[in-house]
């Protein structure tokens, strides 16, 4: 009985832990750190268990491995459902894999720069996990808002003029996007009478012709809100500044926040306008392809034009978003499962790599004095005691051969982002390019243009990052920075995970192929919800009742 409630655990655990930590002030920081770490580790374990369940089929109502969880035991489509399928489970694991290193890194110093870092971090995870799990578009809005509200706090963490200014723009843009989200959701409700994604997928194929333009308008407005979050051109001019201004561990978590937008677009597009979409099949595919290509182009030019590593990392987030968006468009237009599988593989790799890069930026640019000087600089902003500051240099071990370790990590990140062998970036790009050449659904010129952009974006990444690498590691006269073991360990852990994904590419690609297949075959998702029995109606539950 417990195991069926495991689906909601990734939302409940961070929520309870985050709320609990709010009760204590930041003098309990050490305890909070361990509590957060336990919470995130539990989320990783549960996410892995959920992946296994999604692969083999759940014990509740297994429609080809998709499990449904009826919140409050209301039968669909009247209540809200959580849906666990391969894609959701994969994103949960990815979130937890990124959260652990980011949390450890923050524990080394950044968390001291402002109040309630750990609580905000846990609430961010509530929003992320919830957005991946939910099967209801209004509930998706609520989780998006939780995630955004936490991210506003995290972006401003550490204060400072640059962050407040970037935060002002970030909040204003996301508030406006949320209003668009609401307009889209209510328009869809007004025309279809449902908010349940699976129910919606059922209704689309049989919707009368005169209602379709309204539905399309609603989904398009909704998609604009997601595209803002995904950082698609021309809605992405806020992104590099905001990501650059964020504290390093926050920047690393932001690497997955754009992917929530991409995830929502991928999920809704395949569900509503896939092959079963009737007259609406393939709606928006062309726009997604074009927007994806321009986004990659803008990221590519941005990387070449950037002077600092922070801005460069933010632009590489754009490239990876644009790539997955473009491939979503291709898949929507009937490009086939294989390229979507490659794109999902690429998404996992690029999120982890950009996360690692964000964690590397700050140690690489650190002037002499290390973390103690950095803390002293912002200490008065929050009135941290002098006595507490004195303890700071003792928090960890400084690593030997700093430059060598930093340089190696940086080189691996660049190899990954540029898509050079042997890291997963290369495998992911090959897995996308091969089906792009073979596809026949769309004009070959478009596919070739996309391939050219993919390869050029890798090349631009290599040029830009190599320039920064030379400046930092070879042509640098400032004394060596002091980097704590706790700060470099998360980066190394991320790189180890990346190489594991590279070595186990076959198993991983098999999983993403299954995911892409499930995304194309929407029947299991669309009808499974209605086959899910309420707990009160199940035979074993009836015996308990008098």
């Amino acid at each position, binding site marked *: 009985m417990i195991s069926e409630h495991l689906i909601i655990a990734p939302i409940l655990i961070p929520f309870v832990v985050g709320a609990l930590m709010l009760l204590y002030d930041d003098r309990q920081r050490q305890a909070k750190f361990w509590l957060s770490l336990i919470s995130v580790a539990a989320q990783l374990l549960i996410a892995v268990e959920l992946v296994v369940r999604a692969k083999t089929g759940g014990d509740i109502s297994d429609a080809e491995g998709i499990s449904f969880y009826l919140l409050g035991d209301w039968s669909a489509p009247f209540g809200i459902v959580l849906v666990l399928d391969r894609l959701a489970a994969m994103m949960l694991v990815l979130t937890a894999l990124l959260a652990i290193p980011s949390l450890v890194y923050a524990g080394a110093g950044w968390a001291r720069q402002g109040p309630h870092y750990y609580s905000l971090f846990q609430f961010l995870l509530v929003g992320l996990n919830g957005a991946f799990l939910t099967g209801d578009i*209004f509930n998706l809005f*609520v989780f998006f*808002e939780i995630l*955004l*509200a936490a991210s*506003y706090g995290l972006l*401003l963490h550490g*204060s400072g*003029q640059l962050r*407040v*200014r970037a*935060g*002002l*723009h970030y*909040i*204003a843009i996301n*508030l*406006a996007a*949320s*209003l668009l989200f*609401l*307009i889209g*959701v*209510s*328009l869809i*409700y*007004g025309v279809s009478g449902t*908010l349940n994604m699976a129910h919606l997928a059922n209704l689309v194929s049989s919707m009368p012709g005169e209602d379709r333009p309204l539905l399309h308008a609603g989904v398009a407005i909704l998609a604009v809100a997601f595209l803002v979050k995904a950082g698609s051109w021309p809605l992405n001019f806020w992104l590099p500044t905001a990501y650059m201004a964020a504290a390093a561990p926050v920047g690393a978590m932001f690497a997955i926040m754009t992917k929530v937008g991409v995830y929502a677009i991928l999920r809704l597009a395949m569900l509503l306008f896939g092959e079963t979409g009737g007259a609406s099949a393939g709606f928006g595919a062309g726009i997604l392809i074009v927007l994806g290509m321009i986004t990659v182009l803008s990221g590519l030019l941005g990387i070449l034009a950037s002077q600092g590593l922070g801005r460069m990392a933010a632009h590489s987030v754009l490239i990876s978003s644009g790539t997955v968006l473009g491939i979503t468009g291709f898949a929507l237009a009937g490009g086939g499962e294989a390229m979507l599988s490659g794109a999902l593989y690429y998404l996992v790799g690029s999120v982890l790599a950009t996360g690692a890069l964000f964690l590397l930026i700050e140690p690489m640019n650190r002037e002499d004095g290390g973390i103690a000087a950095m803390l002293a600089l912002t200490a008065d902003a929050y009135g941290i005691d002098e006595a507490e500051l004195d303890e700071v240099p003792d928090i960890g071990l400084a690593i030997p051969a700093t430059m060598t370790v930093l340089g190696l990590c940086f080189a691996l990140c660049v190899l990954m982002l540029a898509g050079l062998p042997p890291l997963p970036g290369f495998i992911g790009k090959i897995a996308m390019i091969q089906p792009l050449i073979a596809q026949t659904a769309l004009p070959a010129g478009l596919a070739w243009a996309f391939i050219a952009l993919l390869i050029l974006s890798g090349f631009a990444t290599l040029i830009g990052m190599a320039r920064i690498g030379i400046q930092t590691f070879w042509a640098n006269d400032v004394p060596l920075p002091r980097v704590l073991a706790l700060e470099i360990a998360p980066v190394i852990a991320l790189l180890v995970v990346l190489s594991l994904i590279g070595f186990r590419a076959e198993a991983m690609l098999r999983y993403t192929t299954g995911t892409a297949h499930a995304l194309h075959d929407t029947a299991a998702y669309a009808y499974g919800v209605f086959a899910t029995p309420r707990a009160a109606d199940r035979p074993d539950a009836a015996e308990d009742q008098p």
Partner: protein
Amino acid sequence: MEIILSAAIGILSASGIWLLLRPRSFQVVVGLCLLSYAVNLFIFSMGRLTPGAPPIMPKGGFVDPTRYADPLPQALVLTAIVISFATTALFLVVMIASRGMTGTDHVDGKERSQ
């Protein structure tokens, strides 16, 4: 009634968008508020306009759904009001912090002439 409601939504969102694009952060906040009012009205109207119809149905017996208003958009509006209220309050805090740190209420943190 349809004309009045749609005109209200239109005017509110038009003024909201205009204010949102202004350079002063106070104007941006007011613009966001007006826009969220427009959106709330829009969500409400998506449940169809039914004068004098209660949203809650009695329990048991035959219920004619055409005599009742759709309760769902009303619940959605409540959620949307709460969330946009909270996030606007947060935005105000950031705005005031920005005003204190930069000494100007321009959204870019500096006057254009400087």
